[in-house]
């Protein structure tokens, strides 16, 4: 589904990704771990199409086509979803409006009619119940005055409504208490599907207790130093990131 090959990217004059390669297939859950500043969030932003980052080398192929040619909204309609590390507060733009506009943009792209208002509301309420979200959040401004945990649940709600083919969750677990973490994990697990790929970008192993990854990659200085199965995450938790760096340089 996603083929990243020798990807390099920079912002300003700073090179952040340095020849990163990664293949993600449908049905797989990948975890990308690494210390702060290793390029995890940059990778997520580049895949979503943020123009603060310039791709200086390599390629990204999604469903067989060149992803880097597409605008952020085209990527979204083609089934890519980015859960933000810091979801943006947008006062005055109603949460329900955004959910509906997002769902309809995708449906229009597929040649489908707009979603029925009643069906939409019913679906949104179901998904909110899974995430333990109060329905009043639908009528508030997008993330406006939400707590950290509420913002992350809202990201997962959007993902659940959009049913992406490729979901990238950027530190969705950071700053969550245990109840919120479980709720978010429940939402993510509900989306596991043989047709869908999920990439979890995370600093800690904690989320992986609740969402079991098929593959774990360790990112450092803009490239993948080591890949393995879920036991790599446990090993990292025990030995720290320096262990991987030392092993790589040895």
């Amino acid at each position, binding site marked *: 589904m996603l083929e990243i090959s020798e990807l390099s990217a920079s912002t300003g004059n700073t090179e952040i990704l340095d020849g990163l390669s990664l293949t993600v297939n449908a049905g797989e859950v990948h975890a990308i771990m690494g210390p702060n500043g290793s390029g995890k969030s940059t990778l997520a932003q580049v895949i979503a199409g943020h123009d603060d980052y310039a791709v200086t080398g390599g390629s990204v192929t999604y469903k067989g086509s060149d992803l880097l040619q597409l605008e952020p909204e085209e990527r979204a309609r083609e089934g890519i979803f980015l859960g933000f590390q810091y*979801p943006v507060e947008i*006062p*005055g733009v109603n949460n329900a409006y955004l959910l509906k*506009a997002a769902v309809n*943009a995708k449906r229009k792209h597929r040649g489908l009619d707009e979603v029925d208002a009643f069906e939409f509301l019913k679906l949104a309420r179901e998904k909110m119940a899974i995430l333990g979200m109060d329905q009043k959040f639908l009528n508030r401004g997008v993330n406006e005055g939400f707590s950290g945990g509420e913002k992350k649940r809202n990201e997962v709600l959007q993902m659940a409504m959009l049913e992406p083919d490729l979901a990238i969750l950027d530190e969705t677990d950071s700053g969550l208490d245990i109840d919120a973490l479980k709720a978010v994990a429940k939402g993510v697990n509900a989306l596991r599907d043989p047709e869908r790929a999920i990439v979890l970008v995370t600093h800690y192993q904690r989320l992986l207790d609740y969402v079991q990854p098929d593959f774990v990659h360790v990112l450092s200085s803009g490239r993948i130093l080591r890949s393995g199965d879920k036991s790599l995450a446990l090993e990292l938790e025990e030995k720290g990131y320096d262990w991987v760096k030392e092993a790589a340089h040895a």
Partner: protein
Amino acid sequence: MTGSSLPDKALARAVQSLPNDSLSATRRSALAQFLERGFPTTRLEDWKYTDLKEVAEISRRWLEGGATSPETSALDGEIQRICSSIDADWIVVANGVISPGVISPAGTSHPGNGITVSTFSESSLTPAFDVPLADFNAALLTDGLHIRITADAANDRPLGLLIIDRTNGLPGVAQTRIRIDFEDGANARLIEYQVSLGEAEHYANAVVELCIGSAADVDYVRVQNRAENHIQTHRTEVRLATRSVFRYSGFDLGGQLVRNDLDIEISAPEAEVSIAGLYVAGDGQHIDNHVRIDHQTGPARSTQEYRGILGGRCRCVWNGKAIVQPGADGTDAEQANHNLLLSDHSEIDAKPELEIYADDVKCSHGTTVGQIDDNALFYLRTRGLDKKDAIRALTRAFGASIVSRLAIVELAESLTAMVEARLAELTESDSQ
């Protein structure tokens, strides 16, 4: 000042051609004052950013063209459309001429005894002309509209004032004068809807006086949606008595050159004033809002929040002034002005002013000028929204805090549609 810069004889003829009635003497005095003072110039601090050269030009061409007013029967359709789309009792002033009667929604009766509608001549009122442009207004005024609202008046429907102008091939000039007396304890909701049509240039000049009695509670909404080559200067003077409440919102969507003065006098304690405004300007527009709140006594509270959305090559001015006079202790005055610039060619001149001569006061002001937030834009695009739709959603959101506090629900649907249409035009031309 340098005199009127208009053809004096033609102007005098235009004044003389108005009916010989109880306003005649006032017209002559006002004309004499106007001939001496002329239009305000940019040398005056209050007019620094707004040049009325074009106003003088249109007035001159109007005088040279015979100072005529076009037939207003061609406006009947538009008047009908507006009055039936907003559930209110409407009084119509077309090209400065007060239409007789009130247009009420089908199947309802006209406003009852609590509301009296008359003209200045019927009420033996004469227009004052102690400020710039009021003399020009008084000199050329056909007649003024006088409304009295008592505490007994029903408030189940708002009262609408439709100020509608039309040009017909020739440059036009129209003067409107309105005085509303809200008697002690009155509860009222007013809509002042300013609109104009026609290809030829037009200048509309209005003075509105609102006298708000003790414990009266007034909601007043002004909506301006004039043709793109039309000019408006508009002055609202408000006097508040003890414990009265005045909530005002002004929406400026159209016009080429627009100058609104809102002048509020709080001369009795415990009055409450809250003002909100939204101006949306695109290519070629100049919209200037001047607000002056004079706290002559306390305790009293005033708040004002204006928001501006500017696109294309345009200029807007906001000047909010609060004066706290000696002895007006217990005054609480807040002013805020926020602007969203959608293009590199739009300009806002924002000037908050506080003049405080009392000790026990709470005053604050804040002004911001910003652009579309790139992070918010990217966030919406990653959810599949077109760049253009995302910009429109963020622009709409910026104005939402003003639109959503509209106190007159009967107007909400029409106003939202008007703002939405204007924003669509603006974002269409500014997002490449």
